């Protein structure tokens, strides 16, 4: 018993520490490469320089300001986009007609690069917040659409048949069978969306922005401030980690019944 609990403790330690192993090794290698002059620090800043830039922007509060602005845009876009994606995914997933009508169109729109779309977006929505949020909506809707669709399709048809023959339909069928059955796939979609949310924001924030993390990154790039560029990349990576943790949290919460999502070995 005591061995088992020891093993558990060491597992927990490994669980929280190991995910950072690869990033830390990468950063050490990078610092070494710059320190030993294998890479010129003129073109690739050392981690310490990036930390310094980070410190500078943190001390001035600038970074929080940019993050805050971006976060608002991201959140609003995600809520709208996620909602649309979910709704369309449900329509396509639940009705054969819906699929025929919608799926092709959605797949086509999904494939249009935001970068190419920017001129049209400006035409339609101007250069203010609406345009930026529209792009985030566009970016976040599709992963949730596709995974909702896929999740619904892959619900055990025997269970659907059972539920229908037990008199379930409409909302009860949705909450009792469809949503939980598709949930693990929808959450994968959420993971994507949370990532794409930041990705599209960088394009969105090239549209006449003077705040936001995408602005910070592109502005720095334009002025060849590599330390800030790399800082922004690190920030994005951390935001990705955060989004991932959020998705994991939801998975643990909503998929408790699912053997694959229960903690432990």
């Amino acid at each position: 018993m005591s061995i088992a609990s020891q093993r558990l403790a060491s597992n927990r330690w490994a669980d929280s520490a190991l995910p950072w192993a690869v990033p830390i090794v990468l950063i050490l290698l990078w610092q070494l490469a710059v320190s030993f002059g294998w890479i010129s620090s003129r073109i690739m800043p050392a981690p310490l320089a990036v930390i310094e830039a980070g410190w500078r922007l943190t001390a001035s509060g600038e970074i929080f300001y940019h993050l805050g602005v971006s976060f608002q845009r991201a959140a609003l876009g995600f809520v709208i986009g996620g909602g649309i994606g979910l709704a369309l995914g449900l329509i396509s997933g639940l009705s054969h007609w819906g699929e025929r009508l919608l799926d092709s169109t959605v797949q086509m729109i999904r494939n249009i690069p935001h970068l190419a779309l920017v001129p049209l977006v400006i035409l339609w929505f101007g250069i203010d917040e609406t345009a930026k949020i529209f792009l985030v909506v566009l970016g976040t809707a599709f992963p949730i659409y596709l995974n909702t669709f896929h999740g619904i399709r892959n619900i055990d048809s025997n269970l659907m048949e059972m539920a229908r023959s037990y008199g379930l339909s409409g909302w009860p069928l949705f909450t009792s069978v469809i949503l939980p059955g598709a949930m693990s796939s929808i959450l994968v979609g959420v993971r994507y969306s949370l990532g794409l949310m930041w990705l599209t924001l960088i394009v969105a924030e090239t549209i006449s922005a003077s705040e936001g993390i995408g602005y910070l990154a592109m502005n720095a790039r334009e002025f060849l401030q590599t330390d800030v560029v790399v800082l922004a990349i690190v920030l994005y990576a951390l935001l990705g980690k955060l989004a991932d943790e959020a998705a994991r949290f939801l998975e643990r919460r909503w998929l408790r019944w699912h053997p694959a999502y229960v903690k432990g070995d």
Partner: protein
Amino acid sequence: MSFSTYTETTTPVKESAASSARTALSSSKGGTHLHLKGVVKKFGELEVLKGIDLEIEKGQFIAIVGRSGCGKSTLLRLIAGLDRHNAGTLSADGHADLASTDIRLMFQDDRLLPWKSVIDNIGLGLKGDWKPRALRVLEEVGLSDKADVWPAKLSGGQRQRVALARALIHQPQLLLLDEPLGALDALTRIEMQRLIERLWQQHGFTVLLVTHDVQEAVQLADRVIVLEQGQIGMDKAVDLARPREQASADVSAIEGKVLKRVLGQ
């Protein structure tokens, strides 16, 4: 259909099954009158049902036996409206539209929703304050201690009993049971047989029971039907008074005849 009559029974299972009289049936509002004429079902080339003619009175208890793969489940699925027949007619109470009839099918596999606890699985599709009723049925199938457990943590026989409880709680006009007791030990089996019989006597619904246990068929049913090569090979009325003695000579005699037919002797 309300569950109210169910609540009146407070006597334990065994006595109740023994004491409740055959007359209980006549007082109830009765089940569905079912009429099949020349029903044919094909799966591609394979003609599983080759013209089934069958008339079932309101409130009759029918047992269906037959070799594995002879089409018993297919027949139940047709009656439940889950598959379409290729020829012939099906009607319930004179209507060709079976969808409007109140039917519940207990599937051959348990089809429990893995994301719902046992009690929520039983309450599936019920409205109002179903919890107390669900707990009572759960007690009758001997699983009151498993109410809040995920289905994945049940034994095979326990899963089957939960599925049975889920079918019984609805008390439909037509109850279709596809091998409901196949995974149960002798004692639990007898208890479940008594439970089914008692509920049937109280509510007078029509029952179609598919079973491989010929003794069970004769013990419970008003009529035993043998399916053979896609047709009705034997249609044997069991005109014995209830409660029937488990090993009485009358029962054994009929059992022997049916078994002979099933064994192809």
